[in-house]
């Protein structure tokens, strides 16, 4: 969005349709908030369906919940929360006009934590599920579980899969931010892309904060 230099010198990152940087920054922020509202409704449809089916097939969903690897789910929850912290620190570093090295450091740490989350999930959860034969449609050990368990596992894969897609998109965004930071795009006067991407990253975390108890914990495991 920086395709014209109509009148005189503009601050870096300024897009021609706006009057000034404040307007641009506010528009970007509002745009991301509206997008997150959409996302809430997007996940909301799935959460609603999950809750309804959990009520309909309570015993199966409880049994299904016990098949999940709660220790990795818990570890990943911590990993994601820390990644939100590092993301916030990256924004803070830009806001307070720190060197670009610091911004890049926090961004890369965030990416590392995001990748760690996906790696743990892929290797120790989904792959293990595949080996155990509890992946519906791909590797399903029919006969071993009630039909409702298959439905639970479907929702588990839909919901965590959708969340993982959001994580991958987040990693892509972070990569762009690292490149922008390396090119000295950010300063204490211009850090809107960091701030807006941060909103997205925190949102993806919050979705997980809801997914984790809903899928892993409320199966009556610790009664």
């Amino acid at each position, binding site marked *: 969005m920086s395709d014209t230099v109509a009148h005189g010198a503009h601050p870096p990152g300024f897009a021609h349709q706006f009057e000034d940087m404040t307007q641009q920054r506010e*528009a970007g922020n509002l*745009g991301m908030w509206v997008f997150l509202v959409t996302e809430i409704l*997007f996940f909301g449809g*799935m959460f609603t*369906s999950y809750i309804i089916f959990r009520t309909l097939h309570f015993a199966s969903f409880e049994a299904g919940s016990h098949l999940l690897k709660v220790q990795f789910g818990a570890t990943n929850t911590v990993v994601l929360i820390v990644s939100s912290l590092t993301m916030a620190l990256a924004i803070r570093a830009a806001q307070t006009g720190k060197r670009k090295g610091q911004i890049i450091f926090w961004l890369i740490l965030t990416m590392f934590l995001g990748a760690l989350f996906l790696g743990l999930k892929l290797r120790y959860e989904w792959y293990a599920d595949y080996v155990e034969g509890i992946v519906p*449609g791909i590797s399903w050990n029919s006969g071993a579980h009630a039909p409702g368990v298959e*439905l639970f596992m479907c929702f588990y894969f*839909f919901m965590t899969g959708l969340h993982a897609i959001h994580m991958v998109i987040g990693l892509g965004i972070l990569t762009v931010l690292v490149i922008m930071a390396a090119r000295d795009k950010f300063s204490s006067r211009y850090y809107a892309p960091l701030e807006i991407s941060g909103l997205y990253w925190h949102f993806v975390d919050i979705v997980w904060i809801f997914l984790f108890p809903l899928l892993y914990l409320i199966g009556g495991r610790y009664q």
Partner: protein
Amino acid sequence: MSMAIADLHEAPADSSVNYLNATYGIRSWLLTKDHKRIGLLYLATTTLMFFVGGGAAVLMRLHLIEPQGALFEPETYNKLFSTHGIIMVFFFMVPSIPATLGNFLIPLMIGARDVAFPKLNLLSWYVFVTGCIFALYATLSGGVDTGWTFYPPYSSSFSHTHVVAVALGVFIAGFSSILTGLNFIVTIHKMRAPGMRWFRLPLFIWAMYATSLIFVLGTPVIAITLFLLGLERILHVGIFDPAVGGDPLLFQHLFWFYSHPAVYIMILPGMGVVSELITAFSRKKIFGYSFVAFSSLSIAVISFVVWGHHMFVTGQSVYAGLVFSALSFLVAIPSAVKVFNWTATLYKGSISYEAPMLYALGFVGLFTIGGLTGLFLAALATDVHLNGTYFIVAHFHYVMVGGAVMAYLGGMHFWWPKITGRLYPDYWARFAAFMIFVGFNLTFFPQFVLGYLGMPRRYAVYPAEFQVLNVMSSAGASILGVGYLIPLIYLTWSMRYGPPAGPNPWGAKGLEWTTSSPPPTENFKEIPIVTEDAYNYPTPEVPRV
């Protein structure tokens, strides 16, 4: 009318450069970030989809000339009405006014250079086209027979048609709606010109804002619903399909949670357009500006809590039905507020009957019929009798076609001189408007009677005693079809041969009329400063006795 045209057209030398001729070549259109060009891209796409969906409707009406069906196998007929519904709802009605007129007008009306996110705007067109391609592919390679609602089990394992492709097309096109809605919300919040306070905004903007709220809040739900539907078909697990333990009612709840508000996505922009037309052609301030503005918002809000009235006879609890029925009646209040305010605006106005005004007046009448018959359907007892009959078909066509399409055409005729800088032949435009009005009523009024007498919708055959009314309806459809083709011809003709329009051919108020026609790429030479309310038409000089 003509006095206002006057000599506003004192063209400075560089006013010949506008958004249409600033750059040339196919690339300059396909990679444009100009909201006006993107609006025209949408116009071309939705017009194509309109004639695809309309073609399916013509074939259906031809088939229904004879009680045993004149042309097709029942399976083919099923595919025709499904195609008609899916294409018209998701690929024409939903994007029609918002994505064409909305894209073109919102920045012009609020005094901005462009929408807040021009690249996102272009992306949303590409996303939409991708969705269209999926839908057209599925149509051409055999079609679907699920109805536009995709109800399981019609859409589950029983259907061997291209359900996944079409559902994917609707899913993808939905993201285009979301991005457009997001863009509009931010644009309206943050891009208004100095002095353009909320209560100085044209009512079209209020309507677009309400529509955008529904885009953003409703569309993701249909997206996830169709996603689950597709996954169910692929993985054969029981989500919605009762044969494998799923819950078909859940699908209907989720589907209508979006699709009922989507009805207001289709009608709210039309209401916004009509507010503009009626004030412009009766040269009066709108009666009760804030009531009209807030009625748009309240329709958007209420639209989210009435979805259950589509499910009175599908096994939802009676108490839920009672609540949904009561809530549905609420929609009548803001709708009636609008109709009364338009009528009051007309009262003692200096009314002139140019083509856009004919469409607007047609809208008011037809929407009123469509809205009032909606009350029959919101009432539990009558709905049991009328549900699933042609009464429903007639009701929603009065709202969607008699309402939304009339408003769309009225808006197109009103802003066409601004879009192209050319005038179209007014005689033909009035003729077409009249023909559409007659054809429409002849097509759909008999369907109210048919439905009341008990003819069910979606059947390829019907009892012989219904033939007269069906032939009337088919005859009306052919008039309607010709009526839609005429504007296509003369509007296209006017792009090259129409006389120049000048900046404000109607003498209308509003920022879009203060810039040249067609507008320059940056819309305004200088960002305007707004000092007056919307529709500030001069009060008549002669005191009325």
